[in-house]
């Protein structure tokens, strides 16, 4: 089973233009900042939003094709959509909520109730069958919403920011439970999130969506180690530089250059771990390493590592211990020299 969505549509200021392909039995996360078009993509797949141009197909069933004019109404698409707010019907009992999809597809009331009850037991909500959704906690209501779509045996499962409506204290446990429930579903699993941690823990593969465009795709470890956009680099806590490698140097966009140790040639990206950057009050003499003169733009104390934001030929973030920060008398506007070894710069083709 696969889901293929080629989508081009304009929504307000957002121009969504992406091509996404998801195989069944792997969880894929669409990761991106707010307003990147992640929810819009899910709504298009579910049929809640028409596209200007494109094609959505799940397992050979054409949901929508702007070329042939084919279009399936949302109720005719076998897609399970778990909304960010979970979308439980407040006027129905938890059991009737879970049975809703079965009843809508014509299942007998008794049979539907029995099946719904089974699923409520599976997500450990059996004792809430007769309660109203308002009696459920965030995590419970999410499980109810999940049971409500899984009971209908959809071809594809779409989850919009699955943990956003749950308070932080319950997330760890909920992430574990959600991962478990996701693994029992063998169809297409597509979730969207702005939280890299969520993508890393729930998904096998991530698709990075920024301003309506896919900027990167792959396993999370790969994407976060070798980011291709400033946003994903920041999420991964890395400094990202863009330039052209020739020989032992990378020439950056601002005209400055750094010594690197790489086989890559031509347009390339380079990342530097913040902790690989050493800071000095005075420029070290005769060092073979890269020395960049910077001013301190900001100091963010974070536990035993302080993040120092630097302004220079290009912006950098360095991490130092509080003791080192005190010794260097780091303050906003002060001058420092950032020093990086060539071997600490990871270079990969653009």
């Amino acid at each position, binding site marked *: 089973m696969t889901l293929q969505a080629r989508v081009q549509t304009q929504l307000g200021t957002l121009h969504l233009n992406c091509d996404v392909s998801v195989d069944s039995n792997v969880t894929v996360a669409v990761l991106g900042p707010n307003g990147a078009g992640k929810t819009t993509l899910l709504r298009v797949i579910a*049929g809640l939003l028409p596209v200007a141009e494109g094609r959505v197909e799940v397992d050979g069933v054409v949901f929508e094709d702007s070329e042939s004019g084919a279009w399936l109404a949302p109720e005719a698409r076998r*897609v399970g959509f778990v909304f960010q*707010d979970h*979308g439980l*019907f407040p*006027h129905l009992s938890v059991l009737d909520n879970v049975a*809703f999809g079965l009843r*809508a*597809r014509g299942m007998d009331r008794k049979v539907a109730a029995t099946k719904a009850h089974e699923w409520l037991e599976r997500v450990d909500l059996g004792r809430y069958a007769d309660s109203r959704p308002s009696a459920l906690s965030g995590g419970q209501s999410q499980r109810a919403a999940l049971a409500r779509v899984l009971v*209908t045996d959809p071809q594809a499962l779409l989850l919009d920011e699955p943990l956003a409506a749950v308070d932080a204290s319950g997330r760890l446990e909920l992430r574990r439970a959600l991962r478990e429930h996701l693994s029992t579903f063998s169809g297409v699993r597509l979730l969207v999130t702005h939280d890299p941690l969520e993508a890393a823990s729930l998904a096998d593969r991530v698709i990075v969506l920024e301003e309506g465009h896919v900027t990167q795709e792959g396993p999370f470890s790969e994407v976060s180690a070798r980011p291709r956009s400033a946003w994903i680099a920041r999420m991964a806590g890395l400094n990202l530089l863009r330039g052209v490698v020739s020989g032992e140097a990378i020439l950056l966009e601002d005209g400055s250059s750094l010594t690197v140790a790489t086989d890559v040639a031509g347009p390339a990206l380079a990342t530097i771990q913040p902790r690989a950057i050493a800071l000095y009050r005075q420029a070290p003499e005769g060092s073979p390493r890269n020395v960049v003169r910077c001013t301190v733009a900001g100091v963010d104390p974070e536990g035993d590592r302080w993040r120092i934001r630097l302004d220079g030929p290009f912006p950098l973030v360095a991490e130092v211990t509080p003791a080192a920060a005190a010794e260097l008398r780091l303050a906003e506007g002060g001058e420092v020299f950032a020093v990086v070894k060539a071997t600490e710069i990871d270079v990969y083709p653009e």
Partner: protein
Amino acid sequence: MTRGVTRRPLIGLVIPAAVAVLFIALPLIGLLAHVDWSNLPSELVSTDVLTALRLSLECSAIAVVIALVIGVPLAYLLARTSLPGRRVFRGLVTLPLVLPPVVGGIALQTAFGTTTPIGTVLHHFGIVLPFSTAGAAIAEAFVGFPFLVITVEAGLRQRDDHLEEVAATLGARPWRRFWQVTMPLAAPSIAAGAALCWARALGEFGATITFAGSFPGTTETLPIAAYSSFEGSGQVGEAITLSLLLLAISILVLVVLRDRWLGALR
């Protein structure tokens, strides 16, 4: 929200405000003062009063049913669709709110009177609206249904169609979404709108007397009976009894809707 600055009211505002309260309260006190409490039970169950009450309940109930059947769909279309000319329709619906009821009665007469095209067609099927119980109900519906439409529309607007979308992704077709999601969620506003419509229909006078006249047992509803006994036969006592009955019903409606209406203002 009483802030420190406004905690001490301006004396200049207290006096007109007190006048306003008296302005409402005095007529009610006057009414209560003139009730002949000892004869009240027997007057309440007199045939005249009971006939008018039964007729009023009948007509206003029919009016509410008419308003529900045609008003809820209209409210839904106004609230949830981008129907062309929506603003014009909304204005048209609210017109009976400000239109003098007598004008409404005359307008109904010109549309459904026995000599009009519609009246002729209806007559063909043995239906005569003017000066009939059905006509009284129609007049009451005309004046009362804007209350229902406005209340239900506001209720539907309070919520977007997100839960209908949820229902669609769960496989529910449009009619199922309407009956299983939209209507149950709008039920409180439909109930409130129906109660307001009913109260307005129950007190309807001008349009009813113009379109349906005042025939005891056929079109002489409570307010019309109160007016006739007050003006015509000089039976002030019966007029007061009927007025008291209407006042009691009004208070009942107010109590039932208290949380919904006064709660929204709090």
